[in-house]
């Protein structure tokens, strides 16, 4: 493939791929790198591309695999595991009840009503960015991809108890961050 085609590709699909990657990794630099790696892998394998899927689907398939690889690496790097009690100590007392400073407050909204303001979703991204990579990986696989817990454990090579703790911590932190930065400012 010559340079003109690469430019065309990047111009046509770059933003779409980036918008897909960004909420899944919650880091603009990492998302950009994954998009670049996707184009690079596509370009290197262009001979194998038989035109069975559309170019767009082909690129998205590559990107999805790159994102899973990134999650796996985050899981390997994850030193946290469930023994990290300090993280829970802020939110919960020794008896397992909510600590006073971190207890949820009623947001005074209809909890069944969707939120349409785009500013809210900017806050969501900021809050997700504060999660640890592995927490974000578990959370995104569950809520963006809709994977079952067994699949997530298998892909990330974590135990079910690790999974539930990571998901729980992600939820607790995200909820607290959204409460502080949006619902109750």
């Amino acid at each position, binding site marked *: 493939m010559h340079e003109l085609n690469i430019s065309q590709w990047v111009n046509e699909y770059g933003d779409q791929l980036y918008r897909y990657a960004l909420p899944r990794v919650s880091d603009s630099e990492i998302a950009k790198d994954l998009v670049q790696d996707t184009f690079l892998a596509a370009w290197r394998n262009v001979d194998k591309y038989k035109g069975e899927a559309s170019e767009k689907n082909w690129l998205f398939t590559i990107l999805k695999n790159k994102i899973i690889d990134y999650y796996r690496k985050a899981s390997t790097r994850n030193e946290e595991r469930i023994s990290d009690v300090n993280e829970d100590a802020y939110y919960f007392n020794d008896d397992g009840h909510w600590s006073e400073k971190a207890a949820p407050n009623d947001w005074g909204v209809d909890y069944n009503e969707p939120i349409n303001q785009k500013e809210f*979703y900017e806050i969501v991204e900021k809050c997700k960015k504060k999660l640890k990579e592995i927490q974000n990986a578990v959370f995104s696989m569950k809520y963006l991809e809709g994977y079952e817990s067994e699949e997530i454990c298998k892909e990330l090579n974590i135990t079910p108890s690790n999974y539930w703790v990571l998901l729980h911590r992600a*939820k607790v932190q995200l909820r607290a961050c959204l409460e502080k930065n949006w619902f109750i400012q």
Partner: protein
Amino acid sequence: MISKKEEGKISFIERIQLWQHLLICSLCKLFMKQNKLIASLIPEAEKKSVASLSDKEKQQIVDAISNAN
């Protein structure tokens, strides 16, 4: 356990334990409601995203691929 219930991965005993706990833990009930809302909104973030790569960033990608040749 709330997360487990959401996924339907909860045993009968756990279901009773959770029910008992929620009877006395109003904060947990609130947590559950709030998380249900958050979970329903997460996929919207992607749909509403207007994030894009700048022309410069796109050119950097093109250059990186050309140079990798």
